[in-house]
């Protein structure tokens, strides 16, 4: 296919291009750190650091696909993580009760954001900006501005624990079989409907590549201490959100609302309810991220989650989510989160000054969106 320009190739294999970008970033840092960047210990750390941004990005990608934005999630993460710490440290609530309370709070606050946006017509940017200040304020109020520590072991385990080696291997094999099964099922269904089929060797190769990645993933993490629990949670969310966006009625409606809200409304869909629940889910993700964050730090800090809304939004955009809504993928957003986390981690290892880290991250975000926009041009 000579006629295909670089631009078209890039558009078609955007995710591949992103993965190549990740590989390049990793190669660069490995070279600069004489290989210590790719040690199992560091990769385990990297993935754990990424998990908080990743969990937020899972929710944020839905919000952005629906054509909205939520700036309050960093503060909300801090607030919910703080509530978890307070309930744990001062109230001595058992973990299960604590989890239920924090998730409940997250859902309610998320739904409040959604209600104000969808039913009261306040632009989500403003609701988010207001929430960003207000939730941070509440957090400062309930913690008195000091770090709440030490949190109990079960909560710490949530953020710092590992899945033992054997279940990790079982999980890896299970995921491989699932991938093989899904590929097989899609092929048979395509054959049934006479739809164009990708060549068998391509699908075969894809399953093999997935297998190799899974093997490397489980093996590397087991070489250290096992799969970190936050990473396990992130994997589960990746599966769940990919399912929601691609297989469910609700998922289809998210894309429809973001692409053309008026046409969707005239098709008899309650667009306000769709938006309400997207923000509800976003609140739940903040709760999960807040719990993980508190566990990881073993403390509830009044500054927890500062700027993490920007990381999550950046992850979505680097991962190819459209700024005007209507298109985007969960796995793309997570690859975007991986890019951000890799940059953070690598530059910290190299002792790059914080100001340089900020400059580099900001530039990468702008560059990624520029590439995305320029390859998208003319497709509107």
């Amino acid at each position: 296919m000579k006629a295909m320009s670089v631009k078209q190739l890039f558009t078609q294999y955007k995710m591949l291009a992103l993965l190549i970008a990740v590989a390049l970033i990793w190669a660069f840092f490995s070279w600069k750190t004489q290989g210590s960047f790719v040690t199992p210990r560091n990769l385990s750390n990297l993935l754990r650091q990424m998990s908080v941004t990743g969990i937020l990005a899972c929710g944020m990608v839905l919000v952005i696909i629906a054509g909205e934005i939520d700036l309050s999630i960093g503060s909300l993460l801090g607030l919910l993580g703080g509530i978890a710490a307070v309930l744990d440290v001062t109230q001595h609530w058992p973990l299960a009760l604590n989890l239920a309370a924090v998730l409940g709070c997250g859902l309610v606050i998320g739904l409040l954001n959604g209600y104000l946006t969808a039913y009261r017509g306040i632009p989500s940017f403003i609701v988010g900006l207001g929430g960003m200040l207000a939730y941070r304020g509440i957090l400062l109020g309930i913690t008195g501005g000091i770090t709440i520590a030490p949190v109990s072991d079960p909560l710490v385990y949530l953020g710092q624990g590992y899945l033992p080696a054997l279940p990790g291997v079982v999980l890896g094999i299970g995921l491989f079989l699932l991938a093989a099964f899904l590929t097989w099922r899609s092929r048979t269904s395509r054959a049934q409907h006479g739809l164009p089929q990708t060549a068998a060797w391509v699908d075969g190769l894809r399953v093999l590549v997935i297998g190799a990645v899974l093997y490397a993933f489980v093996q590397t993490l087991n070489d250290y201490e096992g799969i970190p629990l936050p990473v396990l949670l992130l994997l589960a969310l990746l599966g769940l959100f990919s399912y929601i966006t691609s297989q469910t009625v609700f998922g289809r409606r998210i894309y429809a609302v973001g692409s053309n809200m008026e046409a969707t409304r005239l098709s008899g869909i309650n667009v306000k309810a769709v938006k309400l629940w997207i923000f509800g889910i976003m609140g739940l993700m903040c709760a999960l991220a807040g719990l993980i964050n508190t566990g990881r730090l073993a403390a509830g800090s009044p500054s927890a989650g500062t700027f993490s809304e920007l990381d999550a939004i950046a992850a979505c955009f680097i991962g190819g989510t459209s700024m005007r809504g209507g298109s985007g993928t969960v796995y793309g957003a997570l690859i975007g989160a991986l890019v951000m986390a890799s940059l953070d981690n690598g530059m910290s290892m190299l002792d790059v000054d914080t100001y340089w880290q900020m400059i580099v991250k900001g530039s990468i975000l702008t560059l990624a969106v520029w590439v995305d926009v320029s390859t998208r041009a003319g497709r509107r």
Partner: protein
Amino acid sequence: MSDYLLEMKGIVKQFGGVRALDGIDLQVRAGECIGLCGENGAGKSTLMKVLSGVYPHGSWEGEILWEGKPLRAQSIRDTEDAGIIIIHQELMLVPQLSVAENIFMGREITLPGGRMHYAAMYKRADELLRELKIPELNVALPVMHYGGGHQQLVEIAKALNKNARLLILDEPSSSLTASEIAVLLDILRALKARGVTCIYISHKLDEVAAICDTIVVIRDGKHIATTPMAQMNVERIIAQMVGREMSQLYPQRGPQPAIGEVLFEARHVSCIDADNPQRKRVDDVSFSLRKGEILGIAGLVGAGRTELVSALFGAYQGPCQAEVWLDGQRIDTSTPQKAIARGLAMVPEDRKHHGIVPDLDVGQNITLAVLGQFAHATRIDGEAERMAVRGEIAQLELKAASPTLPITSLSGGNQQKAVLAKMLLTRPRVLILDEPTRGVDVGAKYEIYKLMLALADQGVAIIMVSSELAEVLGVSDRVLVMGEGRLRGDFINDGLSQETVLAAALAQHPAPAADTAYKEPAA
């Protein structure tokens, strides 16, 4: 040296592997008006984009000669400097800016320091409007104060201000009323007399016939014929456009239309303007509709037709009240969701903004309204969805290579069919069609009319709002006429003439009771 102002020779434009233009020739003499005709997707717009520099020189093959010299435009700016001005179907005015500011957009007269020289601009704008015989427009008022007809004329004034020598009008009359179109055609004649050359693109062939000297027909990207209008008539233009003789524009309904008992009633529908609470867009309109009946709603633009049907469907943006009755039962249609659940469906007027969902593919657009039906627990049954989509595509003769194509890749007529398919999947008992054939080519129009008749024969009651009188009279069993938000007439379509309908639409008072088929239902 040629005697042509413009010559386009062997223009070829490819998109991917598709030849949108396949060696088109076009010659335009100074001072003549060319009517460019062709079905949707024939390549008219692409050709005009090549001419106006939207597609820069080099992205297409062939040659353009302007006054005998090659024109190699890199952008619209280059062609505008040469005097080629295109006025698009969708007006490119900024509603909040004043008439004068719009006319001078990009070419403002300035004072030192970049300040706007309003006095000079107002004076020149006034002159331009006087030339166009619309001196009543206040050039300092925002454009949004004026209707579509006047806005179209402001666009023309803007073009004249750029010293237009060739004016390209792309569907200029699609949202104008009959009287506004008459004014537009008069002005074009006057411009022609002054030596301005124009290319007129329209689906409304009677306008083309009225104003153009030469008819150029293209089909499937190929040049079919260039004929002086003196040797043509509307039927022959259509024959050239579709490549066959169209014996009739409207399908015939069976001899005994199966019109049954009253199915649907709208009582006391009133809509208040969303921005101006003093203004009633619809003022206490009531009507009834029988099973299997096609009810056409005619009226001038701004008569409140779209507002009326939107209110019935729960889609009116603003304060409104409507009593809706189905099968003698009062039903709640306060939102589109509720209306659809009760058996109403509406295909909206504005396909781009209210019809299609651009990021979903053809199939996903079609199933949008009924997606829940294909879900087991939460998961969409892909197979059931595909079956339904395939059924609708076959029934509507929707031309799409695959249901997984982007909806935006389809032509206007096929997009309209997809929106129609979406609504038909809800199995409506009352189907509201607002301008169902706007921007749809002749062939697809006929298919849409056929489908309407088939649905009516199955007992579906159909309300069709249309600005094309011929269409209203061609397919309706009964015609309601609206004017200034009120019902002005209710006619059985039995040899009804365009004059009668137009007279009712223009009349200051409701038509005489003798013509009124509607009786106030016993409450």
